[in-house]
C-alpha cells in the first residue's frame, strides 16, 4: 500500500514548477540538475511526461544496492536513501526501469523522490493538477472508475443517437 505521485500526462503543461519546487525544498536552491521529478517533452506523442519515482512495491533499486542504503520509510512508505550509506555507485540507476535515481552533483549520494516526508511540494506547486499523491490502492480504484465513466459516456452517446 505504497503512497506515490500519480502523474496525469494529459494535464502537464511543462512549466517545470514541480522540478523547481523539488530542488528548492530539498536543496534550498532552484536547480534542475538536483530535481527528483522531470517533466520531459515528448515530440512524438505531443505530450509532457513528468518522470519520477513510482515507489515500486518491490523496488529493484533496493534489491541491488550494495550497501543497503535504500529502504522503505516507515512513516510515509516512500522508498528513501540513507545518505551516509550510499556510496554513489549508480547500481540503482542502472536497474531502475525509469532511470529515476540520480547522483546529487555536489554531495555525491543518490537522490530520488522521498515524497517530501509526506507532503510532496511538486504536487502542491502544480497549477494544473497533473500531479497528485495517492495510495497505490486508490490509483487502481481511480483507474477503474475512470474506465467505468468512459463506458457510461459512450453508452449515453449511442442511446442519444438511437433516439
Amino acid at each position: 500500500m505504497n503512497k506515490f505521485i500519480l502523474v496525469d500526462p494529459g494535464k502537464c503543461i511543462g512549466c517545470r514548477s514541480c522540478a523547481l519546487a523539488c530542488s528548492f525544498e530539498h536543496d534550498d536552491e532552484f536547480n534542475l540538475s538536483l530535481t527528483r521529478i522531470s517533466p520531459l517533452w515528448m515530440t512524438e506523442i505531443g505530450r509532457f511526461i513528468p518522470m519520477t519515482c513510482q515507489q515500486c512495491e518491490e523496488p529493484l533499486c533496493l534489491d541491488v544496492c550494495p550497501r543497503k542504503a535504500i529502504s522503505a520509510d516507515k512513516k510515509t512508505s516512500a522508498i528513501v536513501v540513507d545518505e551516509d550509506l550510499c556510496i554513489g555507485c549508480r547500481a540503482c540507476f542502472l536497474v531502475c526501469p525509469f532511470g529515476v535515481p540520480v547522483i546529487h552533483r555536489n554531495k555525491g549520494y543518490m537522490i530520488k523522490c522521498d515524497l517530501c516526508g509526506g507532503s510532496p511540494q511538486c504536487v502542491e506547486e502544480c497549477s494544473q493538477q497533473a500531479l497528485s499523491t495517492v495510495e497505490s490502492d486508490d490509483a487502481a480504484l481511480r483507474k477503474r472508475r475512470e474506465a467505468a465513466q468512459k463506458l457510461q459516456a459512450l453508452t449515453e452517446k449511442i442511446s442519444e443517437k438511437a433516439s
Partner: protein
Amino acid sequence: MNGILVADMERCTGCKLCEIVCSVKKEWVSDPPRSRIRITIQRGGKNRLPTFCQHCEEPLCAAVCPVNAVRKDESTGLILLDRELCVGCRACVSACPLFGVGFDSVENKALRCDLCHGDPACVKYCEAGAIQYVDRDPFPTNKQRAAAKKLYSP
C-alpha cells in the same frame, strides 16, 4: 568528458569484442582477461552482463586500498588508479560490489577503466550498441526519456 559508461544488457550479444579492443588499446596485446571491461556470461549464455568501473562517488575500492593508489580526480570525478603505487593486493577487486575492478596477473596490478580519457574505445567498437557513454549529469537523463517513450507511446 564528464560521463560514465552505461550497458544495455538486452542488446549485448556477448561477443566480447570490447574486451579485446580494451586490452589492445591499453596493454598493446589482445588479452581479454586484462581488459578493463568484462562480459560476464551467465550460465547457459542467456544473460550477458558487461561490467566496468562505475566511478562511484565514494568508492569502496579507494577505501580499501592500503597504499592510496586509488584516488578520485576532483576535476573529472573519475576514479583513477596510480599503477606505480599499486602493490597488487587485490583488495579493491574483492571490495567492488559491481565487478568494476579487474586484475592484471601479468603485471600484478589492478585494472580500472579510465574511460579512455573521454573517448572510450569499447563504445566505438560495440556493434550492438550495448555500451553507451553518457553524460553523468542527472537532469533529465536520456534513460528517463526512453522509459517515458516506452510507457506512454500509443
